[in-house]
């Protein structure tokens, strides 16, 4: 074999390696250290009533979505109609974590756009967000009936992602209620 073939061989090896690297995992699914583990415990006042608290215990027993949102987040506005649609179809209980936001503006947002959440926790200083490893809003976690985090999605939820990533991960195909 002539020596001028070696660069070709080296590059093909490198490319095969890169393909394997790309296959190795969906890079968008940032490996959340919480997947497969119990959801981090929290106890926060609800958005609409500071007297009432909501927490990990509230969600137990069912598959549940935990959606991190804020009024300053444009993409949350983009995904909002789809969350409303999920709520209207009773596809799954949806809990919100209103993250680093103003309470008044958040309540006005829900009044204006509709409220898909069974309840929203009000995480004013973002502390629970840190516990949950939130990178930014919107983020959506799927928690199973035993309180284990099954999946985490970064960015706005849409029907395609919902079908592909969430429905397939729920035993019983999403009729958890």
């Amino acid at each position: 074999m002539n020596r001028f073939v070696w660069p070709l061989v080296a590059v093909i090896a490198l490319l095969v390696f890169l393909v394997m690297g790309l296959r190795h995992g969906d890079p968008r699914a940032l490996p959340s250290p919480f997947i497969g583990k119990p959801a981090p415990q929290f106890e926060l006042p609800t958005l609409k009533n500071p007297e009432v608290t909501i927490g990990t215990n509230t969600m137990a027993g069912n598959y549940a979505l935990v959606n991190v949102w804020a009024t300053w987040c444009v993409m949350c506005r983009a995904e909002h109609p789809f969350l409303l649609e999920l709520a209207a179809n009773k596809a799954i209980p949806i809990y919100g974590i209103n993250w680093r936001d103003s309470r008044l503006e958040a309540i006005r947002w829900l009044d204006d756009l509709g409220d898909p959440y069974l309840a929203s926790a009000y995480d004013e200083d973002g502390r629970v967000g840190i516990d949950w490893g939130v990178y930014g809003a919107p983020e959506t976690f799927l928690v199973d009936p035993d309180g284990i985090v099954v999946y985490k999605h970064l960015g706005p939820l849409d029907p395609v992602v919902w079908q592909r990533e969430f429905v397939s991960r729920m035993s019983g195909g999403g009729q958890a209620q």
Partner: protein
Amino acid sequence: MIPEIGQFALILALALAVCQTILPLVGAHRGDAAMMAVGRTAATGQFLFVAVSFACLTYSFLTSDFSVLYVANHSQLALPTLYKVSAVWGAHEGSLLLWILLLAAWTLAVASFSSGLPKPFAARVIGVLGFLSIGFLLFALLTSNPFDRLIPAPADGGDLNPLLQDPGLAIHPPLLYIGYVGFSVAFAFAIAAMISGDLDQKWARWTRPWTTVAWMFLTLGIALGSWWAYYELGWGGWWFWDAVENASFMPWLIGTALIHSLAVTEKRGLFKSWTLLLAITAFSLSLLGTFLVRSGIIVSVHAFATDPTRGFFILTFLAVVVIGALVLYAWRAPSLDSDVGFGLLSRETFLLLNNVLLVVATALVLIGTLAPLVVEMMTGGKISIGPPWFNVAFLVPMLPLVILLGMGMHTAWRSQKADAWWRVLRIPAIVAIVLGVIIPLLFYGRVSLLLVVGCGAAAWIVISSLIQPVRSLLRQKGTAGITRSALGMSVAHLGMGLFVIGVTIVSAFGVESDQALQPGESIEVAGFEFHMVGLSNVKGPNFSAIEAEIEIRNDGKLVSKVYPQKRQYLVQKSWMTEAGIRAGLDKDLFVALGDQLGQNAWSVRVQYKPLIRFIWLGALIMALGGLIAISDRRYRAGSRETEAAA
């Protein structure tokens, strides 16, 4: 409507790119002058349509058209106009469009200045560039359309990443991309030469100025990025060996090797196949860099929004381009070997060593960049190899490189008489070693082996770069002065020397200190007293900030006042550090606010950075050297000569 025009223009540009690829290549094969001539027309048309498309996206940003998804995600009403424009390339889709625009511009430039080239050769170059254009246009249209709509449009946008809201970063990507994309011209010249099968010294002369221009811009782009990281990220470092930095650095290293190897090919007709391989590699590494940045395969502080389909697209394109080029290479290169010899002590030898060392350095950077990926695939754990490894590994090829550099400049082609060589170099060598001891001892009061080596090497490069220009100045009259390209070489190497001294001194004598500070208090770092006068609230167009007023004193005398800020950008709610820097050629004094510790107390990062400006100054002078070199008459005279012959 405007965004749709932009998208439509992009589709038309794709159609023209297809014409620009097929017709000239077929024409050159058949010897059909009319078909070859299409290349230039199609390239002009393609450029115009891409420019229209780019203008449409810019218009959408300027008018804050949030019904365009890309605009909604990366702009907002209160964003200053400058950043509305720079936001166009602030994320993946738009920066890809910028890439395409620059590729079209380079192609147009090649088409316009190719009158001196043989027609079939020019046609093939344009055809190859057209092929690259097809790849990137398809990439944009299929996976990363910047004109996607968002209905209903939000009232306000998500704002540009605050890190990017900085004048330095507004022009960093364009400079870097001009460099990246510029290597596609050297690549296209290499492919065109391999298709036709004849590669002579003229080929190297045609390729050289294009490569030097691309290298110049890449140098400036990297230096600007480093400068930005220094003052904006708030860490005070100037290079982090981040995957994305490495992605730009690898093409630079190979591009540097290519410039030197082209010199040998042009002057002596040697290293032909090697030069071709470097031309292919430089551009392939630019593509690899794009892949690494945009596929999210490697986690980086710079990573763009990642998407596996994009990763697969680039990888496929990379495979087609690189494998195609290397198959052609394996077929053609064996016939290019030259049997001209050269002496052991000759400029050829030194340039060969230069090439070997630069390629080794590139390989080390590549290994370090991909190593975390290998580990992740084998063990599933995410690791970071980090600066300690790079700093040591990189020094191994770099030390001999800088020492050989000074020798090589004063060595003749073919063969050099050893005694004459020694007579020129012995005094500079002794002076360099003496300076290597004196500089650290006298100015900074400490000396070590590494310091002597670093300062000595820097002095060695500076002195040996100056010998030739100084001599030609002293000679006064007479035409036997220095040629522009020799002067350019001297200047670029001088820049390298300044860079080396900057790196050596700042890494040995730089001081960093994190301390708590509140108004009325002082701390002392590196002999300077930093006194916090007070804190105040400041409002910007789209951020609010806390600003500290800090007086810097030396022996009770006021040196400077700096105003570091901690900014909160209102839309993304993210905190940014705006360092207060007292910049000087001899040293920088750097103050950045960290976290608020109590009512009024802040953690403050104070740094003393001697000679850090030499790092960027050195890079700037290197680029200047490139500029001088391409102004050499030879390139213009050469093209006229070929025109006359044709």
